[in-house]
């Protein structure tokens, strides 16, 4: 429940020194916010030397609620599955799309299977961490911060943004699409990022005059929320300007359909969010770290149809997204990665569902990927003492490969340690 961030840590000194709207004089006030650099944010940018200089893009897809790994990457030949899941296992094995003799994808992941066939899908199996928690919120926080000891407050992508990117003039370097609040993975007090629920509606309905007035209104606001307001407004204004150009330039070259049956609580429109992500990538807005969410994976109850629908929805949205990027000639440097706070209990419950679990596979999709299976699938017989799957790959190994191999950031600095290699990238960028 305690989701407060340490707003008192925001450094206002630099902002107040240079950012008083009156100090900027008549021209500053007249032109409104957009023309006046946000001194607070600029001070942060200025402190950042060097950093990432490539154009690689990461798109994280959160499967919120705890995705059932066994129904995503299905063990085809393990007889223990039928004992653990008398109701859920039958159709899931017989209908699975085989990848190898032992594993197959959920039958609704046909588009992603075609990417596998082209060598563009890497699956890391058995991903988790020590002493797993079965609380959604604790585990989400662990995945978001990359810290199972729960001391870290900032998100792993937020830290990456703050440490490795120059966001000066690029408010969209970090962007959460289809959300209203900052996802925990992107949160960092020193990072500038934007949040866009729906780009068609993003902007001031009162027009540029309201925008200018509000920009002036929020300059140098006193109090503990002052810098937060200020940065959010400045970033919003810059984002509006960028979106104005990008939406004029972008034509989708794939069918993003939200007609696929929506499942309970998947109110996040994944396809729409990914279409916005594509627009931002294709039109060269400088996006690097994108985050989208598909909810509804907490399948304690009647999992069979629910989970199949979610898989279908994920598949159609991701397929359209990849197709769109490829058609625009922009897919070669975009890595798509799924994550979820945990997998589900191998033993099904009486409600035709599954309870909170532990280790699960992650999907890594796109041209930068070297297709194949990585890690090792957890045993269905040798479960841990809570009846859950044991992990074989620390989730931070995956982060490490993404950070150092794809983004070219200093993974050791961001994660605070080094982890076993999981070499799922075709041509990792040279080490920093």
């Amino acid at each position, binding site marked *: 429940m305690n989701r407060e961030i340490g707003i008192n840590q925001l450094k206002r*000194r630099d902002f107040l020194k240079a950012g008083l709207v009156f100090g900027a004089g008549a021209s500053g006030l007249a032109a409104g916010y957009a023309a006046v650099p946000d001194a607070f944010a600029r001070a942060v940018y200025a402190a950042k030397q060097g950093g990432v200089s490539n154009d690689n893009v990461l798109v994280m897809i959160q499967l919120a609620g705890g995705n059932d790994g066994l129904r995503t990457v299905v063990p085809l030949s393990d007889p223990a599955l039928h004992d653990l899941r008398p109701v859920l296992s039958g159709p899931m094995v017989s209908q699975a799309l085989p990848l190898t003799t032992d594993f197959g994808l959920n039958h609704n992941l046909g588009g992603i299977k075609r990417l596998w066939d082209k060598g563009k899908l890497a699956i890391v199996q058995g991903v988790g961490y020590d002493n797993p928690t079965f609380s959604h919120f604790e585990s989400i926080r662990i995945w978001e911060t990359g810290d199972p000891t729960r001391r870290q407050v900032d998100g792993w992508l937020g830290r990456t943004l703050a440490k490795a990117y120059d966001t000066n003039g690029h408010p969209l370097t970090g962007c959460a699409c289809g959300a209203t609040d900052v996802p925990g993975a992107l949160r960092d007090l020193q990072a500038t990022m*934007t949040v866009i629920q729906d780009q068609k509606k993003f902007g001031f309905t009162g027009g540029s005059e309201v925008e200018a007035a509000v920009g002036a209104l929020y300059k140098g606001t006193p109090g503990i929320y*002052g810098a937060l307001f200020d940065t959010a407004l400045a970033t919003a204004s810059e984002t509006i300007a960028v979106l104005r150009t990008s939406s004029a330039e972008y034509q989708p070259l794939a069918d993003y359909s939200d007609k696929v049956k929506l499942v309970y609580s998947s109110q996040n429109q994944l396809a729409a969010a990914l279409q916005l992500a594509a627009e931002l990538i294709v039109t060269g807005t400088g996006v690097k770290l994108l985050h989208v969410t598909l909810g509804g994976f907490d399948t304690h109850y009647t999992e069979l149809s629910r989970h199949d629908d979610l898989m279908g929805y994920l598949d159609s949205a991701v397929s359209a997204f990849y197709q769109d990027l490829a058609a625009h000639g922009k897919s070669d440097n975009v890595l798509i990665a799924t994550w979820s706070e945990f997998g589900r209990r191998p033993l099904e419950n009486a409600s035709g569902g599954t309870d909170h679990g532990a280790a699960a596979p992650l999907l890594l999709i796109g041209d930068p990927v070297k297709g194949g299976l990585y890690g090792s699938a957890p045993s269905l017989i040798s479960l841990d003492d809570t009846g859950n799957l044991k992990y074989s790959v620390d989730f931070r190994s995956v982060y490490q490969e993404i950070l150092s191999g794809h983004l070219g950031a200093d993974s050791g600095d961001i994660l605070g340690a080094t982890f076993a290699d999981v070499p799922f990238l075709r041509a990792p960028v040279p080490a920093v």
Partner: protein
Amino acid sequence: MHDIRKPALGPRFSCCANLNLRILHIEVTLGILRGRFNAGMSLDAAPDTVSSSPMPRRRGMTRRQALTAAVAAGVGVGAVRLLGTTMQTLSQPPPAAGSDWISPLESESARVMHLLRRATFGYTDVELESALSAGFNRTVDRLLETAPAEAPVFDASPTPGGRFPIAQLQQWWVNHMLGTPTPYAERMTLFWHGHFTSDYRKAADNTLMYWQNLTWRRMALTDLRSMLMQVTTDPAMLRYLDLAASTGQSPNENYSRELMELFTMGPGNYTEEDVRQGARALAGWQLPRPDSYATVTIDNANSVARRLPVYTTQAPGVFNNRRAYHGTVTFLGQAGSIDTQGVIDRILVQPATAQLIAAKVAQDFVNPQPDQVFVTRLADTFRRSDYDIKTLMRSVFTSQEFTAAASYRALLKSPTELMVHAAKALGATGLSRVIVAAGSGMGQSLFDPPDVSGWPSNAAWISTNTVVERVNFVTAALGQTKASLPSASAAVHRHLEGIVSPQTASLFNQAPDEAARWFIILASPEFQLK
């Protein structure tokens, strides 16, 4: 002293009659500004509006005088008693850069406004007047002791399957927030809605969500022990956290886990085994029997019809002993044949429960980072009172921490608080449709919390998307109300205590008309805070 209703700084601007603010060719006289405005200062009241009690034209006017003048200007001299002690003068040196707002909370009137902003959804002029004449202590008593007014009957509730649009129910609740004589009960109902969460999507029957809202309101000011029983057996909750699908033979852990993790004790205070054992002990609850069934066409195009339940009489879940667990469980250190009441009693023995509720209340009503000593003091009081909510909330509102200078504008209004307060400040009663439509972009749709942990609070409400949507709401609300606006100058004092940033003061002064002045007030950072 300059009149805040007139452009005293001499800016020239072209403007239109509507809301648009054209800020063009402004000439700012820096000397005047620096002399008059410091961060977090008070706007001086307009002396010529208080004919019977002219204010001295000098810079060292006290804030009390400013407040007196302002409130009097709106409601007539003598109609309001201001009981505040002498306040600091405005001519004091500016605070250090980056410091907080200057707190006016030594003044009784400011404390009353502070209380109403936090314990209710802001106030109308009439509500403020009445609270000001009662004073802070009597207003606290009145809030706590007045029985919650029942919400009006929601006409669509017997719709088969609860298949009426959720927006109707959202609007019904917002209308009640706007009009209720007991707004504190609504504030607490929203607090519990964000704590004991359910959402209409998974409840899959909007009538059950309507019932839950009625139950939460009735229980909002009772005690945690009886509340937990009502929460556990609430039909929407039985669906939302799957307790209705749990049996003793094969328990579903969802409710057992969240009951301990989010509703009462918090993580780290129970084991995974407690989750499993608790799930056994709690199994057996089912939804109540519908009053009747109706066959309804749910898909006209394909002529699909379904037989759907019709609920006309509110009822809690029913316990079916055949689905229960018939054996001993060991739950939170106690072995035996434990039923639902036993589970709740065991949870309330744990000191962690009072700590969690007290910390959440403190974060929502006092300070985003409450002091641990304060939280423990609240928790002890709460536990000693056998978890009486009134006792807890009284100790919150009457605490030193509640009215400490550091608590002034230390909390961020949730979207619902922001919008309902705006409507009340505008004296507008017809904004519920606008309010319901605007909630989602700011991150708060009633009956649809983002997940089982409810809504975030304070700083987490702010993102690029939500700040823009907060402003857009103000534009939409003023678009509907601009024909009959109350005095914006009075509102600066009634709703912001006249304490605004230099930018807010300046833009307010430059605003060409009443709608633009209201825009500055409602879109200001000051109004987002409480």
